[in-house]
């Protein structure tokens, strides 16, 4: 895969006798050495599958020359006897920032600063500051012995480094952690390409959201493809040029949670790129989907520490999701391995680097096999970076980077004595010390002075002195190069300092008393060291961990609900069809669909029967305007963001999905916010709580959010926001004209191109994701939902649409729809409104609760929506208000939250009414559904029960049990002195239309 890396190995072979830098001048005599060492009698772990007992490793000039049970040792070799010791390949970290300058993050305040529409990076670069493919880590790399030492201590020998900043982060460099000149430790420049969804230190306004970052990266791939073929048009764009170079390299994508991991993979799929994805440690929560990506992962070993729950009031600040993740996070690696997902490990993310081994051993305790762990630190990373020919195992010809350890690397208590990198020796714990443990008689200045006891480990002894009066002293000790130095308080609280050396009987030496008198001392051995009977090393039986819930949070499911065959009997059925409201009627659900509606339906076996007497069965509520279950809502960086897709930022774990099910909602259109005239592409979901992204999304709904009014012209954002065009309703009209005329021209260009019989030599037009979406509107393939308040601007958009020959599908909010309902009806534009909101800003001063009724009477298809996670769970009440205000017939009022939104979303062929063949998205209400007293008995989607009142109670009880169990476990952790953190909870933002994201992730 990597030709230049095998070349590299070859270079090493050539280099063996010329280890210095040939081009560099010297100050003094040459000091080149052969570096020939033989390590004998070692247990050599060649790779995770192969171990050589009593083997020999021969290295020379930083390269492995030979390895095996029997190796001929040439003359002139330093022989190191490793009897009883182990040799491992040294470890590789692929997500390092070793030797790179720290990223300077700009101070960002919340959303209310003057926008910076252009990049601050001047020069022949691309337009966006967060896209910096031209960054080359090898050019920024400066070896740092301090940093290197901290990594070497843990056993690492090689690191792939890159600048952790921005969406496109440029190329990485493979370096070793040896203390050699930079030219020697740099193994490979431009070894890898790096990406993320975070704009990092970029101060440019766009992208201001995750979906914006996603769209920007997508567009960059298209731009680079186009640039490759038509550079003349763009001139020399160094960023796109560099992008085309690095996109062929092994590509690493940093993500922040399981859903951004899946998003990254999906993005790669669009361009035939399989990213190596840096995960975040929550992969176990969506194993199946992650496995299906086919990606190799780069996983952290940082786990949350327990919360200090001593104070019961404090503990309320922690959610069950946090408690469960604390318990399951150390099992993540075992789960991932068990699922057969390949991965490498990284230290990145650890707050304390020294926790690396502690955490890794905890993961092993929790089921991660040692060989997989070793593979993930050696073979796998070497392979991922295409350096398997030079790194990762102990084989002839590879770089001599290896560890000398006291025993199995993954056992607790194992000591790493030495970390050899490129044939350079780094001693972590000396091995050449004699075992001096034992009990000695301490004689100072010829006076018996007590007993010196040396115990502990031979490599790391501990010392104690018992004086004649039986008091115990722990002296300060240095043991270096055969000299033992002790200092301690001796008699009358005076300090005595002794230095000695080993003789036949024990120790002898000289010292100084507190008053400066020189004395002699000795310590003849009395009894040899006897190891204490080992403590019971059988590990305490690991207490069982809780099950994975879907999602891993309160109200999560043990298993995702499955479709059942159900017969609901003798109930009042609101069909929303010409049959109207049917009394005493049965509805049969089979295979997720409504199979029969009628009286006295037969009960077949295997069908769950529900008595609906006195109750009301309706189709599920559909919320035309929602912002739940989203990681982000507004890409407000530009006045058009048609390129962004809300489907990129859907969060299936949002508890509001469950809460809305409890209010009878079964589907929601997740809209972009209203920060700009042309917003982003909507995502339509069914509220399949516990399901994954694919379960939730309905990709056939293609719509886009537009917006008018005060938000678009930034009236209420403070005086710093008087910069972005447009600032008036006059400007908004021109935004539409400008963009749609461009889209029309764009579509024509593509049309002309596609019609060419011979495309040879003709460069395809640049693919523009923003204009793609607008062209889809012009082709009537994408529906507009437009946030709107006052009549002037509504009228304006209708005229723009008329003149450019496109259609507005829905005006949402449309609080002055009543003023031009006739015009909307003429154009068959729907109105999706609030029941009674007003008075929150100037443009809703003339909003009236009779709006829905007036629009309804004029023949507009009217929906009542929420735009709010709270209101959404009682949309039945909001629909009832149209009866109060303007006297809409009850059946028609009910359609405003069911059938009518289905029509506006073009989903009425499968949703919105109780009709044979439609999806069984049903709610059984205990009362008239428009009644203030009504509540759902159950909410079903496609035949599966996603909410059920009895089940809800059972879940609450189970949550209490689970919380109590994990709390006890955490408190035990605290009692054992383990690190704890203060209780705290992070709740994701509840989005509304007007909320602005300041930065992506």
């Amino acid at each position, binding site marked *: 895969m990597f030709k230049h890396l095998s070349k590299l190995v070859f270079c090493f072979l050539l280099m063996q006798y010329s280890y210095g830098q040939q081009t560099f001048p010297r100050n003094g005599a040459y000091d080149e050495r052969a570096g020939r060492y033989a390590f004998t009698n070692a247990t050599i772990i060649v790779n995770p599958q192969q171990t050589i007992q009593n083997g020999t490793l021969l290295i020379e000039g930083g390269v492995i020359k030979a390895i095996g049970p029997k190796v001929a040792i040439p003359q002139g070799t330093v022989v190191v006897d490793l009897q009883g010791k182990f040799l491992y390949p040294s470890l590789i970290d692929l997500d390092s920032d070793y030797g790179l300058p720290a990223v300077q993050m700009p101070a*960002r*305040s*919340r959303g209310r600063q003057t926008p910076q529409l252009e990049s601050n990076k001047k020069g022949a670069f691309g337009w966006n500051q967060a896209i910096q493919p031209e960054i080359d880590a090898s050019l920024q790399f400066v070896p740092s012995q301090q940093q290197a030492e901290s990594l070497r201590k843990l056993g690492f020998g090689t690191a792939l480094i890159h600048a952790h900043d921005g969406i496109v982060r440029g190329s990485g460099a493979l370096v070793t952690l040896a203390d050699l000149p930079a030219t020697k430790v740099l193994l490979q420049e431009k070894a890898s390409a790096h990406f993320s969804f975070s704009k990092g230190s970029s101060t440019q306004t766009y992208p201001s959201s995750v979906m914006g970052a996603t769209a920007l990266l997508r567009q960059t791939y298209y731009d680079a493809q186009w640039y490759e073929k038509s550079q003349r048009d763009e001139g020399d764009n160094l960023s796109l040029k560099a992008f085309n170079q690095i996109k062929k390299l092994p590509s690493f994508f940093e993500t922040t949670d399981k859903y951004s991991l899946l998003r990254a993979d999906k993005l790669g799929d669009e361009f035939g790129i399989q990213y190596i994805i840096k995960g975040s440690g929550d992969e176990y929560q969506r194993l199946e989907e992650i496995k299906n990506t086919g990606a190799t992962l780069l996983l952290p070993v940082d786990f949350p520490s327990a919360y200090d729950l001593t104070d019961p*009031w*404090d503990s*309320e*600040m922690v*959610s*069950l999701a946090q408690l469960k993740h604390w318990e399951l996070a150390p099992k993540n690696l075992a789960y991932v391995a068990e699922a057969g997902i390949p991965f490498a490990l990284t230290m990145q993310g650890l707050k304390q680097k020294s926790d690396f081994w502690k955490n890794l051993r905890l993961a092993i305790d929790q089921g991660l096999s040692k060989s997989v762990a070793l593979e993930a630190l050696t073979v796998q990373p070497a392979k991922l970076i295409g350096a398997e020919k030079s790194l990762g195992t102990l084989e002839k010809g590879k770089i001599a980077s290896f560890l000398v350890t006291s025993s199995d690397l993954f056992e607790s208590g194992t000591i790493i004595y030495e970390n050899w990198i490129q044939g350079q020796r780094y001693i972590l714990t000396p091995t050449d010390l004699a075992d001096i443990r034992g009990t000695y008689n301490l004689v100072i200045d010829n006076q018996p002075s007590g007993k010196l006891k040396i115990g502990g480990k031979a490599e790391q002894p501990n010392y104690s002195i018992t004086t004649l009066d039986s008091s115990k002293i722990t002296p300060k000790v240095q043991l270096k190069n055969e000299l033992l130095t002790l200092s301690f308080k001796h008699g009358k609280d005076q300090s005595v300092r002794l230095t000695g050396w080993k003789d036949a009987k024990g120790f002898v030496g000289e010292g100084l008393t507190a008053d400066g008198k020189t004395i002699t001392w000795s310590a003849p051995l009395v009894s040899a060291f006897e190891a204490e009977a080992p403590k019971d090393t059988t590990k305490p039986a690991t207490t069982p961990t809780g099950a994975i819930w879907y999602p891993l949070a309160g109200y999560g499911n043990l298993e995702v609900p499955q479709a059942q065959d159900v017969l609901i009997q003798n109930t009042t059925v609101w069909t929303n069809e010409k049959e109207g409201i049917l009394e005493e009627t049965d509805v049969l659900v089979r295979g997720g669909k409504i199979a029969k509606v009628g009286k006295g339906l037969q009960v077949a076996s295997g069908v769950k029967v529900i008595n609906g007497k006195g109750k009301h069965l309706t189709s599920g509520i559909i919320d035309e305007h929602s912002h739940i279950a989203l*990681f982000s809502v507004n890409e407000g960086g530009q006045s058009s963001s048609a390129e962004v897709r809300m489907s990129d930022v859907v969060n299936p774990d949002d*508890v*509001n999905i*469950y809460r809305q099910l*409890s209010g009878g909602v079964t589907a929601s259109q997740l809209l972009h916010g209203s920060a700009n005239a042309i917003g982003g592409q909507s995502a339509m979901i069914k509220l399949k709580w516990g399901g994954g992204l694919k379960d939730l999304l309905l990709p056939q709904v293609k719509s886009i959010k537009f917006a008018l009014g005060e938000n678009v012209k930034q009236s209420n954002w403070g005086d710093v926001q008087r910069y972005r065009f447009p600032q008036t309703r006059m400007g908004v009209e021109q935004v539409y004209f400008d963009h749609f005329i461009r889209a029309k021209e764009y579509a024509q260009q593509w049309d002309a191109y596609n019609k060419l019989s011979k495309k040879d030599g003709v460069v395809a037009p640049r693919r523009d994701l923003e204009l793609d979406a607008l062209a889809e509107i012009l082709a009537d393939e994408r529906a507009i939902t437009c946030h709107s308040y006052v009549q002037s601007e509504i*009228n304006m958009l*209708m005229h723009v649409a*008329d003149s450019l020959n496109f259609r507005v599908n829905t005006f949402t909010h449309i609080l002055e729809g*009543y*003023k*031009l*309902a*006739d015009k909307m009806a003429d154009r068959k534009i729907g109105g999706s409104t609030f029941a009674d909101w*007003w*008075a*929150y*800003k100037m443009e809703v001063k003339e909003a*009236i609760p*009779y709006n829905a009724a*007036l629009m309804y*009477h*004029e023949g507009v298809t009217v929906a009542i929506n929420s735009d709010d*996670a*709270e209101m959404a*769970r009682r949309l039945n*009440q909001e629909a*009832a*208000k149209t*009866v*109060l*205000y303007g006297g809409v017939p009850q059946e028609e009022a009910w359609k405003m939250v069911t059938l009518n939104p289905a029509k506006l979303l073009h989903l009425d062929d499968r949703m919105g009414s109780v009709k044979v063949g439609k999806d069984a998205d049903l709610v059984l209400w205990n009362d*008239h559904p*428009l*009644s*203030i*007293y*009504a*509540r759902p008995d159950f909410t079903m989607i496609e035949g599966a029960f996603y909410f059920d009142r009895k089940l*809800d109670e059972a879940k609450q009880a189970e*949550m209490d049990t689970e*919380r109590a169990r994990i709390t006890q476990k955490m408190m035990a952790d605290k009692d054992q002195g383990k690190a704890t953190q*203060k209780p705290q*909870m*992070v*709740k*994701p933002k509840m989005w509304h239309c007007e*909320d602005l*994201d*300041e*930065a992506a*992730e």
Partner: protein
Amino acid sequence: MKYQAKIWATCHLMIASWLFTGAWAQNPAPGITQKGATTLVGGTIHVGDGTVIEKGAITFENGKITYIGNATGAKKGEQIDVSGKQIYPGIISLNTSVGLKEVASVRATLDYYEVGDLNPHIRALVAYNTDSEIIPTLRSNGILLSQAVPEGGIISGSSALFYSDGWNWEDAVLRKDDGVWLSWPSYASTAIHTQDQSELTKRNERRQGVVDLLKQTFSEAKAYAELKAPMPVNLRLEAMKPVLKGESNLYIRADLAKDIIEAVKFAQSYGIKRIVIAGGNQSYKITEFLRENDVAVIVNPTHRLPGHPDEPVYLPYALPGKLHQAGVKVAITYAGEWWRTRNLAFLAGTAAGFSDMSSEEALQLITKNAAEIAGVSQRVGTLGVGKDASLLVSTGDLLDMRGNGIEMAFIRGAKVNLDDKQKRLYEKYQEKYKAK
């Protein structure tokens, strides 16, 4: 072209209808003071204390109720047949910003949030705008009394209680300066993450400093209250006197159970008798404490999401019922909101639907209990002889959108004009479409 012609037609119509309704561009005039007697005959009377009188009659004279009971007995004054309809006491909406807020995004229309930490002397009374376009939309839905409350700071100021009708605040006020509002520093603090705007909740490290400041202020206010002629005069401490003397309420905003207990103990330590908790999200955990200490709770709007991801999904809806059934005096409100308070009856309806409380009990939470908490129960809150004739006639169940249809409302016996701006716009555009 087709549309252009229509627009012209529409414009002409609009001008015509605007001229027609021009006389109504302002809020309607307040009702005319009642002279003589009026009797509502034949309706179902919901007294407000749980009693229901079928086919009843209610007579009021010169603004006061003089008879309530069986329809057969009453024949005094003007007779209005309300057979088949429902008679209720006017709804009392506590803890609002009605009259102090008009358009949320326009600073010039906002008068509810003063600067400064300790502002007991700030009075909602004088800023209450009887000409607010919001107010008529409230009485259309049965809100006949609103408590305007200042916000901001640690001690926000003093509230006052207003009828939804009147030429000016002096006319409209039922009770001046009914209590001082204190925001208890919460045990938990929340911070918004600047990047993903997530909300971080953790222990409030600055809390003790605020509690210490309050201790000092209340101690000094108590000492000050002992002086007959204090010198120098301190407006802030002066304003605390009625609270310390038990003449008006100390309203404490607190949500967490721990905060509520601490705040109540704090107030009691200064001898304060009339303590009301506003907020009370976790009050269901300490009902015994609240009952024993005779502390009432004005709950936050119950149309809200659970405060914690693990909280039961219906807990906010069920909360008033839980408190009521545990014997705690509770009122339902829209805390700090203004236009939304017109939905107060529906909050009560939801509270009944999602707990074991009856709708008649839920009604008390927006009438009788609210009046008792605000110290005006001798005048309003229930229908009884000697009380203000502040009542309404609804086509059906007041608490349900399907029944709530306010046909008549009386404030101190005066018949209220139920017109409002929104109805006028409704009528105006009905004209437009009829003319088509």
